[in-house]
């Protein structure tokens, strides 16, 4: 086969000579990968100029899902804001609540008890597993394999059942409160969770064998959509996308300490190529790592209260705080300004996918049309995260 497994980092510069439409001479064509499209995760519109099969320029048009979150939070109390921000990145919704609650607790000077911190971290890692399982299956779908998404969804169900058993909601747990969590875990949850992690590791192995080791998948994803590390950091790409370009940066380890990550022993996975295959590979390894972290934490949950002493009506004192965390999609941050009321004065949400998508015009020049789909799938953005 003519596919070369050695990755050429400058491959994006080489334009192939083959002309598909020598006789037809179609000229430039504008293609709308419109808001309704099976390949974009939601209502992303990509206006693409094509010369035959090759992309000349691509412009993402976002905002089809803008719900006005930052304005909505101005008129709601802190528990009500939690219910809203669950829905920013709906696939890993617990992870969205964590930085906000952490920020409010910093402003109030309260610290959640250790048991609550452990359970928060476990639930965050479970959301990471849930969203990555979907990614692992669904990227196979975007390159054409029909069965991987079903495996991803099937095994994700177990993780969602765990989240539902603890919080009451599969997708929108709404479980964080200022000072701790709403409820403690139900009886038997820890053992069930251990079994679920075994299922997750098996599923990762199965998906690796079905997708990642498949030569056709590699031929479709290697050397496609290479993000050089300087360009990536310049555009604000974060999370697994950046780690797949070789940048060793993980806010759980390198940022300000939050939750129980300083006490945990985990590995940060990077990959030297910056192509779509490495993004898939990094997320696969991170799923396994998350499963191992959950098992670590399950062995070490301390007993104790689940909620710190907080007044009945919570009024957060005046101040401003910036909290950033390593969400599954990338770096998510909240800038909370409080003026002493029961609700925040202003919340600015820095979502990961907004910056991840900003690299698309640069990244999609000169690729083939099917590769556009591969690149979109490998960047893994969620529209709710882009548009808020």
């Amino acid at each position, binding site marked *: 086969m003519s596919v070369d497994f050695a990755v050429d980092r400058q491959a994006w510069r080489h334009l192939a000579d083959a002309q598909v439409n020598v006789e037809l001479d179609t000229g430039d064509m504008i293609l709308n990968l419109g808001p309704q499209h099976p390949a974009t995760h939601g209502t992303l519109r990509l206006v693409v100029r094509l010369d035959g099969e090759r992309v000349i320029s691509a412009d993402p048009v976002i905002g089809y899902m803008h719900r006005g979150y930052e304005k909505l939070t101005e008129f709601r109390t802190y528990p009500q804001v939690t219910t809203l921000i669950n829905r920013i990145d709906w696939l890993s919704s617990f992870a969205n609540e964590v930085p906000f609650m952490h920020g409010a607790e910093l402003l109030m000077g309260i610290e959640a008890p250790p048991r609550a911190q452990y359970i928060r971290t476990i639930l965050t890692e479970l959301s990471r597993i849930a969203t990555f399982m979907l990614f692992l299956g669904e990227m196979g779908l975007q390159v054409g394999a029909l069965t991987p998404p079903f495996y991803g969804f099937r095994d994700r169900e177990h993780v969602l059942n765990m989240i539902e058993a603890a919080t009451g909601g599969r997708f*929108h747990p709404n479980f964080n409160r200022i000072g701790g969590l709403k409820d403690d875990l139900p009886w038997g949850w820890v053992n069930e969770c251990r079994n679920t992690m075994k299922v997750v590791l098996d599923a990762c192995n199965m998906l690796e064998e079905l997708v990642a080791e498949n*030569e056709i998948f590699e031929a479709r994803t290697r050397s496609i959509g290479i993000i050089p590390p300087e360009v990536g950091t310049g555009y604000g790409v974060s999370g697994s996308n950046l780690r797949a370009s070789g940048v060793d940066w993980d806010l759980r380890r390198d940022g300000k300490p939050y939750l129980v990550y300083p006490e945990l022993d985990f590995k940060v996975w990077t990959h030297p190529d910056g192509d779509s295959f490495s993004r898939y590979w990094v997320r696969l390894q991170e799923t396994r790592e998350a499963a191992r972290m959950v098992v670590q934490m399950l062995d070490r949950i301390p007993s104790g209260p689940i909620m710190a002493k907080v007044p009945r009506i919570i009024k957060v004192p005046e101040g401003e705080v910036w909290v950033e965390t390593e969400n599954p999609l990338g770096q998510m941050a909240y800038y909370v300004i409080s003026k002493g009321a029961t609700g925040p004065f202003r919340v600015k949400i820095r979502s990961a996918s907004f910056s991840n998508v900003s690299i698309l015009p640069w990244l999609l020049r000169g690729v083939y049309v099917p590769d556009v789909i591969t690149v979109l799938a490998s960047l893994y953005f969620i529209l709710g995260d882009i548009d808020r």
Partner: protein
Amino acid sequence: MPKLPKKPKAPGLIGGLGVTFKTMLRGAVTVQYPHEREDPPPRARGVIALKEENCTVCMLCARQCPDWCIYIEGHKEKRPPRREGGRERTVSLLDRFDIDYALCMYCGICVEVCPFDALFWSPEYEYSESNIADLLHDKEKLGEWMETVHEPEPLEVGAETGKK
């Protein structure tokens, strides 16, 4: 030096075939609703039930709801004093307590803030209607959901019991 994936050999394609074949033999995981049902865990947020005798029409739930989907109307009534010569007591009684499930976000804030334990979660989920106006559950219907509310379940090892 990060671990690079090893160069795959032809068995990569064969291994994939093996995975689908094994899955085919293992049987389906489909739960054939409506012939079979899966029961959600007891904490699942299915529907909110109202225990009317506990409600004192304090309106906290209606105020705290992020969607403002609870509609409450009440009136005050006089009750005879507890002892001879005392003041007459007033009690608040519910006239109307509607939850509009077309708006409800299932966040649970109302259940949580109620100081008198009048609202409960129930994992019941089969109440879809063909007419959207029928999703406004009134007092009687919310009272009927009380039968489906589960007992509070025991907590995990290490939890402190008896605390809020």
